[in-house]
């Protein structure tokens, strides 16, 4: 009898224990389910086909110009190999002894032997650390620059960081400057047929360089579309609750009740209205702003391009109500200013997070067919004539660049995009296509007209 009772007791204890375990399992099942749902929402989104770029990757000169008293015109580098060599030589330059001077008159323009490196936009002095070798402890004065001038044999200064719109200039010295300048000159002298430049004086008295020979061609490119879902996963904290609706204009609106993303087939425009107001006490310096935005874009591989395309920093704009950083698509380091929806990444960065984010949805791929000479593009001389003519009377001209414009090829049934060389003039509102006189505009360039 006793052994049977023992067995029954044992079974009973076993059943009671297992019922407790099962009850606990049932009890704790629901919280597990919720955790899984949360994990599903926390998708670490990255854009397909995107890459990370360092700060120095997105700051490349637009022009590199050598002035030599023995040459009739300023010259520039033609071969890609020498451009790379020059950029590497620049990076290896060790700078020290920074200070700030006031330059009421751009006297450096009278220096017969000098090198000028110009950029698309005014850059904060903090990026000097990215462009050259500078000790972390070295004092670099605050300020902006869009032109670096290397002076050969000047009594006082070696390197100037000039902002065309400002009298304040940062000056610096370089280790072994004479040898390094000789190396720069050697790279330029090795170019058998360098690009020759015409010089035009801009509104601020700064020199604008226009290439005398136009070698850029019209090219056709296949493209791919980026996934809208990637942007939803990236920009909304709970992608699963995002709902979409079509607008009258044919755009798609994605909303999660607070944030909004408008997709028009060419790009996305995201807004987080709760982050609109800018906390003035936590304002960033332009350099910090650039750093934070660059990190934000890199985190989700936001630089979506395939070489030889790329992205370049094209503006850091801070106003009382907005912190804005823009990047422009480039082809072989030449900026593609239009159509902005297709070529510009814009981030409005407020209070340590994104307020607005515009990103193209189209990514250029391989070239299709061969490059075509562009016949109807005005020469540098013609451009200077136009700039001196009635169209630009009383208009600010800060820069003139032979860039590209990107448009859907008209007879390709939506299959390829055309990259066309186009003159751009930088005015108060940034770069806009050169406005041609009426009779020239009739020659098929009317589409290039209009201002920003």
């Amino acid at each position, binding site marked *: 009898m006793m052994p*049977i*009772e023992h067995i*029954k*007791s044992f*079974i*009973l204890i076993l*059943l*009671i224990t*297992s*019922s407790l375990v*099962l*009850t606990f*399992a*049932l009890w704790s*099942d629901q919280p*597990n*389910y919720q955790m*899984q*749902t949360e994990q*599903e929402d926390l998708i670490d989104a990255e854009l397909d086909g995107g890459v990370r770029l360092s700060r120095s990757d997105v700051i490349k000169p637009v022009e590199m110009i050598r002035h030599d008293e023995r040459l009739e015109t300023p010259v520039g580098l033609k071969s890609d190999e020498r451009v790379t060599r020059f950029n590497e030589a620049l990076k290896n330059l060790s700078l020290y002894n920074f200070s700030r001077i006031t330059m009421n008159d751009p006297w450096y323009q009278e220096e017969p032997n000098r090198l000028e490196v110009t950029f698309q936009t005014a850059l904060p002095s903090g990026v000097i650390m990215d462009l050259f070798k500078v000790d972390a402890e070295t004092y670099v004065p605050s300020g902006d620059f869009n032109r670096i001038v290397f002076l050969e044999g000047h009594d006082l200064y070696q390197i100037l960081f000039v902002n065309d719109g400002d009298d304040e200039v940062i000056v610096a010295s370089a280790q072994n400057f004479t040898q390094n300048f000789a190396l720069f000159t050697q790279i330029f002298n090795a170019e058998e047929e360098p690009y020759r430049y015409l010089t035009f004086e801009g509104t601020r008295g700064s020199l604008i360089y226009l290439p005398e020979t136009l070698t850029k061609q019209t090219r*056709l490119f*296949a*493209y*791919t*579309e980026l996934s809208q879902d990637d942007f939803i996963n990236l920009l909304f904290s709970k992608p699963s609750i995002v709902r979409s609706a079509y607008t009258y204009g044919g755009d798609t609106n994605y909303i999660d009740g607070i944030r909004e993303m408008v997709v028009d087939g060419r790009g996305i425009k995201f807004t987080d209205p709760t982050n609109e107001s800018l906390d003035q006490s936590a304002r960033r310096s332009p350099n910090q702003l650039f750093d934070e935005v660059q990190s934000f874009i890199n985190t989700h591989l936001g630089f979506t391009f395939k070489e030889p395309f790329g992205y370049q920093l094209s503006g850091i704009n801070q106003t009382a109500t907005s912190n804005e950083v823009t990047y422009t698509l480039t082809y072989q380091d030449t900026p593609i200013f239009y159509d902005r929806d297709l070529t510009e990444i814009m981030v409005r960065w407020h209070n340590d997070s994104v307020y607005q984010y515009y990103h193209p949805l189209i990514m250029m*791929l391989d070239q*299709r*067919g*061969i490059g*075509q000479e562009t016949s109807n593009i005005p020469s540098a001389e013609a451009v200077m004539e136009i700039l001196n003519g009635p169209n630009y009377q009383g208009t600010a001209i800060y820069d003139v660049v032979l860039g590209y414009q990107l448009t859907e*090829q008209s*007879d*390709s*049934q*939506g*299959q*390829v995009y055309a990259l066309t060389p186009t003159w751009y003039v930088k005015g108060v509102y940034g770069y806009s296509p050169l406005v041609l006189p009426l009779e020239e505009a009739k020659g098929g360039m009317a589409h290039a007209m209009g201002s920003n």
Partner: protein
Amino acid sequence: MQWGQIKSLFIICFLVLNVFLAKQLIDREDETLSALPEASKEEELELNISGLDQLNQETLEAPLLYTNSYNFNEVENIAGQLTNQEVVVANDTTLFSRLKSPVALALDDTEALTATLNQHVYLGGNFKQYRYLEEAGLIVFFQRINYPIFYNTQAVLFVKVNDAGEMTHYMMRALDVVEEEQEENEQTLITEYDAVYRMYHNSNILKTGDEISEVELGYHNLVSLPNGEQLMNPTWQVTVNDTVDYFINAIEGHDYPQYTNFITETLNDFITLLTPGSSSDYTYYTLAEDRVEEDTLLTSIRQPFVTTYHQLTEVESE
């Protein structure tokens, strides 16, 4: 003894309770699993579109083609290859032919049809039947360069048949490969399944309930280059519900716009070249001995196609 019975009772009770709890737990887990993943995009496609089973998942490669219009007047001894027909070539690139005696066509037998075309139509073996418009007595063929070239006004053959189903006239244009980008430029193509996937999810071309009838690889004009060349892109032709053809770029996956009046517009384009007073340059080959004036050949070729054109446009307007 009583305590022993209570234990037995408890054992039974707990056994029942445990079975119940275990079932609850299993059900809950099943429920959780089915609730977690939403229907994937592939599942959504499979639920809404039929005919996906026949789609090939194999990844193919094909080159882009650079092509130029075929110049018939540059062919050495073309007349020797044109038997039983009178031919006029307009502007070097458009060939019109009138058969001296009609040739029977085996429309139901593809091989026999190709053999007949090969024998009686210049470059005929390079063309594949696309449509037979029986009421108008017109067969439309597309040229093949490894694969068919879809809807290209420069790569099309129109064959006029009489009531007995015999070929009486034809007119054509063809493309010639200028440069075939070789292996290093072979493009990896999206699969047939990917093409349909994009039609459903990206372009919203397909609607719930549609059936994929056939998918075929071919070429489509990507862009016409300023030097007169055409750049041809590998393209999937997806036939839906046996009625409508859609074209999907087989490299990047973009869709092409729909064609509406391709046959009538191209037919009209051909006929215009024969219209009296047109500025076309004509070259005649193998004219019949009894033909006194060359111009009469133009009229005798033009007239049957004009009738066909009117029949087609009347049907369209109805």
